[in-house]
């Protein structure tokens, strides 16, 4: 497995990459800050596989958790509510709280 850049518990921000074409990073987390819950393993990059390339080298896929109140202005649920999803390492950069 490829070496992980981010440890469990790391604060990360989702980069707003200008990827044209297929990607698996939903718009609603772009630019948002979350916390790494774990790593699902290393996988080939679907953005490249979508066009016939092999998507290698495999890179780490992280499970990242966000506070719902950080994602949706006027979120109607509880402050403790959260959302998590799987994001590839190249979509993440370190965040420093705040």
């Amino acid at each position, binding site marked *: 497995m490829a070496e992980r850049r981010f440890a469990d518990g790391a604060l990360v921000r989702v980069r707003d990459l200008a990827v044209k074409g297929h990607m*698996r990073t939903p718009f609603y987390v772009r630019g948002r800050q979350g916390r790494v819950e774990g790593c699902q393993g290393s996988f080939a990059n679907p953005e490249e596989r979508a066009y016939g390339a092999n998507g290698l080298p495999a890179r780490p896929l992280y499970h990242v958790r966000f506070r*719902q109140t950080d994602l949706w202005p006027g979120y109607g*649920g509880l402050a403790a*509510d959260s959302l998590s999803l*799987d994001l590839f390492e190249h979509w993440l950069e370190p965040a420093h709280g705040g």
Partner: protein
Amino acid sequence: MAAEQGQDHGHDHPPRSDHPVRAWEKREAAIRSLLIEKGLLTADAIRAKIEEWEQKSPALGARIVARAWSDPAFEARLLADAIEAAGELGIEARGVKIVALKNTPRLHHLVVCTLCSCYPRALLGLPPAWYKAPAYRSRAVSEPRAVLAEFGTRLPPETEVRVVDSTADCRYLVLPVRPAGTEGWSEDRLAGLIGRDAMIGVAVVQAARA
């Protein structure tokens, strides 16, 4: 966009005539026959695949949940590697990674695929139409409690709702909270309580049945 197929549900599009339905099915038959002729597929392989998916249903997931409720060591193995654990029960789920998410009185998981319709098919069978439709895919992430309420599910204020969006090569199965009043029940009896919606996370499992 809930109802599939050409039946005349008359939701928010005009009733279909017979012709568009047949056109679609004809096209499927045409493509299938060409693929068979060219040796890419066989009729037997197609029949076998349909049969394989017909064997997959939420009953498989229910057996896994019932075992996890009954056996803490199995539950731990399930949370560590859901595919291996399913294999212990003779359920073949190898393929795309599946992760089990444990619900507790303080944490309720709800699964969605906002980008398409990813679903733990190997353990639950084919997803329901609503799971694949825009209303659920759009709102489960931003207003999960409202969506839960539409399923008749209301959670107490001390329970965190965590939405899990299946964005990559992982599928998620919710391990619902075991209801009170089921102490000493056999696994079969427990499995009978556990429905698909509780393993997606839009419902909770109730012990009392009307």
